[in-house]
């Protein structure tokens, strides 16, 4: 029963969504929308679970004086400062939450994102080393595409930008669509396995 019941709920919920996709009658569509609302409500409750989890895990690390425990103190401090300031003063403009978000959280997130530029350089260096025939082809293609996207490319050879567009619109797009079709079929097959109760590994079974 412990194994069958969750699979039955998954089947029922999935079936309603598929049914509502093809049968647009009001009651059915409303019920499917209600199911989606339930997902949001359940998500709200699990957020509490997440906060409890993050607090407990970090408190344990602080108690045991694990490596880098000081950072965990800062994390917990700001977790509660942000939450409390949002509850007391709200999240509108010119509130403490808004100030913390724009002056601490946003710059930190931007910093993390900007590191990507350096990582792209190191990954490109590794990927474009012409060790094999395929890697050489990749190197040539990428140089053509990169040059074709800059004014320098146009200056060197006026047909570079159209060549770049052709590479992106045909060989590149064909491969991407191939991957997308495969992925869409894979997702459909997996959904069907879940609906039919064959795939239960996501519940830790099987």
């Amino acid at each position: 029963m412990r194994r069958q019941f969750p699979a039955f709920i998954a089947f029922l919920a999935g079936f309603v969504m598929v049914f509502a996709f093809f049968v647009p009658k009001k009651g059915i569509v409303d019920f499917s929308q209600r199911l989606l609302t339930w997902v949001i409500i359940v998500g709200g409750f699990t957020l509490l679970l997440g906060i409890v989890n993050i607090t407990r895990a970090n408190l344990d690390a602080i108690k045991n004086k694990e490596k880098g425990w000081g950072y965990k103190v800062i994390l917990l401090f700001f977790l509660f400062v942000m939450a409390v300031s949002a509850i007391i003063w709200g999240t509108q403009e010119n509130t403490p939450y808004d100030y913390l978000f724009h002056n601490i959280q946003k710059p930190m997130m931007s910093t993390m994102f900007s590191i990507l530029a350096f990582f792209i350089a190191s990954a490109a260096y590794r990927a474009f080393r012409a060790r094999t025939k395929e890697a050489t082809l990749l190197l040539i293609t990428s140089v053509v595409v990169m040059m074709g996207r800059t004014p320098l490319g146009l200056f060197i050879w006026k047909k570079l930008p159209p060549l770049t567009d052709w590479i992106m619109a045909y060989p590149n797009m064909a491969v991407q669509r191939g991957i997308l079709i495969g992925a869409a079929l894979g997702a459909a097959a997996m959904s069907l396995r879940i609906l039919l109760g064959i795939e239960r590994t996501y519940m830790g079974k099987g």
Partner: protein
Amino acid sequence: MNLLFNSKIVGFFLVFLFFFFTKTFSQNDKIISPPSNVVAKDVLWDDGKALKLSWDLSSDDKDAERMHTHIDGYQILRATKNDSVLKPIAFVDDNVDEYKDTGLIDTIEYIYAVRAKKKDFFSNLSFSNYAKPEVNWFRADRVNMFVLLIVFCMSVIFYIQSAKKGKPLFIRKIGGLEAVEEAVGRATEMGKPVLFIPGIQEIDEIQTIAGLSILGKVAKITATYDTPLIVPILYPMALAAGQEIVRESYLDAGKPENYKKDMVKYVAGEQFAYVAAVGGIMLREKPAANIFMGAFYAESLLLAETGQSTGAIQIAGTANPHQLPFFIASCDYTLMGEELYAASAYLSKEPLLLGSLKAQDLMKIILVIFIILGAISITLGWGEKFFYKLFLER
């Protein structure tokens, strides 16, 4: 004399005005005749959000040989029964005699008016009947997907039945999945943990479910080898599912005492905060194996490059094509698209699950045939309307 002259001028002016207005109005009346027989009808087999409008072309739309048109097109106006205020909603070209109005509400009655237009002049309005969109029992515009779904379901059931009868199913080797056990073994030998990241999406994303399915298999191997496992999570719903999966896997492996709730932990609720947290784990704990399976976005390269710098063996899998190049550049093995979804079936080796992979292949063959036929038909101009209708119309 002056009076006479003035009266002559006034008389001439009045005659001019008379001819001018007579000419202008008669031009309007004669040149632009309105469309006729405007009919508004419910679109059959839809979700009750559309009406179809048709009319007979204005007699000025075309001459006998269709050599020359005297109008620019038709303006369509709409009003509801409640407000009765006509508002222009669309303009269609000349020689077009129908229009599909979408985004309507099935409880409201609509009335339409159509008039022909030439430059700044309009014909008289031709009104339609009142019509109300109706919700039907089936969406005909999705019949192509319905047929494909039925064929897919049938083929899955067929191959599952074949697998049940013991018919051997050939599944090609997937290098990335073969390497999972090797990666965990390496971590065990080095006495270091395995880091598993099930993407950065919530559990309603199918890629996250696929990632969590693989997590179950990985957790079973780490439980067997007594290798520490770290699973940082971005969304709390995935946290609950991840904890349950890992707990069940340790139970299945006969090592429930080794399971710790904090193996699966919620580290952040924001994308780049999550990257910072996972990057920190990679640099502090130095996992010997990093496994990325699920939906990834801009953080994919940040995570994979940080992992690469620590010397860990890295296996990635995602169905987001834009992130695949980053994983291919930074990871030792990459599962592309469908391989991610096939992973749980592949690792379990269960005939029931493998059967669905064969059905997937059959569908791929069907789609490839349609793509080839579509390309040929559109190139040669044979039956292209059929293919447009089949795949493009919604």
